[in-house]
């Protein structure tokens, strides 16, 4: 009877899910409620978790709870320690979820709500969560080895080296793109700039408190920090209204770029307790709180979706937010939330050293990734519930929009949508900004969407509520982007110190100051260059750089899925290797097609080298040709800048594509060797040892062995 009831529930969930998907795909009315999307997502996640993740755990991986995990065998109460699965879930989720799942869906919304949503949900179920779970499991079986180490040991030195270069170059692009999102959100916004600047003294205060006054009291210091943060947002509103200070807090994009570069360098050189660690606590609590609030807000207000199911940009590839057609670019632009290679770095590192029981890779690996996917779905909802005219006026290439609400309104009409100049102005006034035209990068759009949803919840507080919530959302995104910039610069710094340390020993010591400074400067110079180029790109840097970032992230996913497939084949699970091999094939197809188009497309809106050729012609002729002008370039100087940027971006695209091909080719050599029997499947798995913990992490009481005791 119980079993029957169980079946009935799952059949019910399947019917609800299918009905929601049906409505999303077929409904013919004017607008459709976001609730359908929300429930389609939740039902799909529930079914995938119940059935597919269990299949992976039991059949594919063969998780064995009688086998002791590294946390149990090597428990030292410090880095190896069996941690309660619910607590570890929280840690793991906080470590994987960043700004990525919030930005990608907003940009992809230009093609309508359906393509992005389908990819977020199907992608996470069949690819993203599978990658996270398998990487976590394989790293756990190897005492928490990193992805790079696993690639070297399981594939070979060539694959390992390619993985290392991939990680480093991705880090540089990633940091530049994220910093660019912050610059675009804060430029000419005294309110935003002031609130974000205040996070520095707040973090310093928290750092001193934790280091000297009350070590380890993270909760109380975080409560103080969040309180001060709210005051900083309210203070920002006051600053932006009183004109003498407003001017002092209004920065140009180039000033902000410089500030971010200096900040990134200083934060990387300083000890972590000063800035990075307290900022990390602050952003973790803000992140989890805001995501929870957003879920509640959407569930209560259930806003209608204004964006159509598909826009024409899905098919003609002429989108003003980013160029290129649905395949492959939706799958590139939405990386985090569907399939994110970056997670494989988290899943092979800290988390595998803390797992109590092998079977817990399911809630932690698969479950946390489903949760991140849900965050991406909410970001999509926040973007598509906006007026599409407002959406395009905020996100299109600023060169096409012009500077005024009138020119932006005209440009949006040209895209086939309509918005009046008055609507654009009143939207800006409602969120407490001078203008929202050309606020690219996704963060401001999301903030307008979130503020509308939250203002719906707190409507009694009046019109001021939306401006507060807008800057709250901007602050929340900027805060954890900056945390990623801090942490990422540090990761890159250690990687460079490690690399040079192979050649010259003292460099490898993290505490050696000259090495610290040189390596920090190198990594900051790397992302600083791309940030500066992006800010000054005449064609709108985010449109150019975001696809590159997506390609890089999916490249890392390809490395992780290749390692996973290799290990499955070595474990003698060839018949289940499709679980990682199919997502790998899809990921490789998407990434290589996108790289191909970015390199070889003759459409100058897409291909870097076609764009470069047009720029070169303009420079030689001494005046802009039609192609350059149509893209939005305004002068021959613009063309010179485009020439440099497209060269760098194009070369990087080639590098990424070559890396993917090398890793997969090197791995398939190993696969075929094992399948044909010409190669021994050598594995570096830690040997089996019996576990003495029960599923709650308690020591199992055992019968004393032998009667003589």
């Amino acid at each position, binding site marked *: 009877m119980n079993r029957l009831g169980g079946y009935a529930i799952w059949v019910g969930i399947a019917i609800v899910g299918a009905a929601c998907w049906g409505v999303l795909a077929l409904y013919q009315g004017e607008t459709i409620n976001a609730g359908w999307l929300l429930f389609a997502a939740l039902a799909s996640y529930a079914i995938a978790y119940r059935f597919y993740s269990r299949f992976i755990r039991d059949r594919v991986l063969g998780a064995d709870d009688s086998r002791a995990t590294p946390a149990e065998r090597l428990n030292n*109460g410090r880095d190896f320690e069996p941690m*309660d699965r619910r*607590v570890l879930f929280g840690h793991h989720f906080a470590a994987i979820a960043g700004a990525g799942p919030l930005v990608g869906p907003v940009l992809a919304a230009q093609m309508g709500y359906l393509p992005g949503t389908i990819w977020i949900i199907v992608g996470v179920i069949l690819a993203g969560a599978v990658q996270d779970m398998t990487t976590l499991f394989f790293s756990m079986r190897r005492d928490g080895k990193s992805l790079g180490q696993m690639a070297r040991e399981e594939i070979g030195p060539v694959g390992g080296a390619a993985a290392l270069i991939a990680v480093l170059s991705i880090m540089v692009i990633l940091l530049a793109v994220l910093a660019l999102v912050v610059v675009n959100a804060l430029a000419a916004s005294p309110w935003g700039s002031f609130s974000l600047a205040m996070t520095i003294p707040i973090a310093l205060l928290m750092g001193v408190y934790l280091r000297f006054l009350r070590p380890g009291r993270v909760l109380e210091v975080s409560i103080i920090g969040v309180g001060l943060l709210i005051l900083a947002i309210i203070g920002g509103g006051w600053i932006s209204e009183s004109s003498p200070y407003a001017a002092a807090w209004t920065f140009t994009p180039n000033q902000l770029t410089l500030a971010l570069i200096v900040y990134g360098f200083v934060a990387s050189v300083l000890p972590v*307790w000063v800035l990075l660690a307290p900022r990390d606590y602050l952003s973790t609590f803000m992140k989890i709180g805001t995501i929870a609030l957003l879920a509640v807000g959407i569930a209560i207000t259930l806003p209608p979706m204004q964006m159509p199911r598909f826009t024409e940009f899905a098919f003609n590839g002429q989108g003003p937010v980013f160029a290129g057609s649905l395949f492959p670019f939706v799958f590139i632009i939405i990386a985090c939330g569907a399939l994110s290679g970056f997670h494989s770095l*988290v899943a092979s590192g800290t988390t595998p050293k803390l797992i109590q029981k092998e079977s817990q890779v399911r809630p932690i690996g698969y479950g946390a990734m489903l949760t991140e996917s849900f965050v991406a779905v909410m970001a999509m909802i926040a973007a598509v519930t906006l007026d599409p005219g407002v959406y395009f006026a905020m996100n299109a290439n600023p060169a096409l929009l012009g500077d005024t609400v009138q020119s932006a309104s005209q440009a949006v009409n040209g895209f086939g949508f309509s918005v009046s100049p008055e609507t654009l102005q009143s939207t800006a006034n409602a969120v407490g900004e001078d203008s929202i035209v050309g606020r690219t990068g996704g963060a401001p759009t999301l903030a307008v969407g979130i503020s509308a949803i939250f203002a719906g919840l707190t409507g009694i507080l009046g019109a001021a509520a939306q401006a507060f919530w807008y800057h709250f959302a901007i602050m929340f995104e900027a805060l954890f982007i900056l945390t*990623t910039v801090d942490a990422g610069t540090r*990761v890159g710094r250690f990687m460079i110190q490690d690399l040079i340390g192979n050649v010259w020993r003292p460099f490898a010591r993290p505490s050696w100051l000259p090495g610290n400074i040189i390596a920090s400067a190198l990594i900051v110079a790397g992302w600083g260059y791309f940030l500066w180029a992006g800010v000054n790109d005449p064609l709108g840097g985010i449109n150019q750089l975001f696809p590159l970032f997506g390609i890089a992230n999916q490249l890392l996913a390809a490395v992780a899925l290749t390692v996973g497939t290799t290990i499955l084949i070595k474990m003698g699970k060839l018949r289940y290797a499709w679980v990682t091999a199919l997502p790998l094939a899809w990921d490789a197809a998407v990434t290589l097609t996108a790289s191909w188009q970015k390199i070889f497309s003759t459409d100058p809106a897409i291909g870097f080298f076609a764009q470069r050729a047009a720029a070169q012609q303009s420079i030689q002729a001494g005046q802009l040709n039609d192609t350059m002008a149509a893209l939005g370039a305004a002068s021959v100087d613009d063309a010179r800048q485009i020439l440099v940027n497209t060269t760098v971006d194009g070369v990087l695209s080639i590098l990424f594509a070559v890396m993917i091909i090398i890793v997969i080719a090197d791995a398939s050599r190993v696969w075929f060797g094992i399948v044909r029997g010409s190669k021994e499947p050598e594995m570096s798995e830690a040997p089996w040892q019996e576990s003495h913990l029960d599923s709650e992490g308690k020591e199992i009481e055992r019968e004393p062995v032998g009667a003589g005791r």
Partner: protein
Amino acid sequence: MPDSPLVRPFRYAWEYLKEISGENAYDRYLAVHAATHPGKPAMSRSEFYRWRQDDKYNNPGSRCP
């Protein structure tokens, strides 16, 4: 003092937050240390949290962008 049903969820939430923020980590370290290295002096609270923080960021993983 037995919890009333109204208080219990809040107590659970508070315990969860304490666990997740690492406030309980020192007590657990002391227990493991006493069991594995009996007689040897353990780190003080402040030393432990310094070690923990430095270790976390000196052996960085990464996060989703």
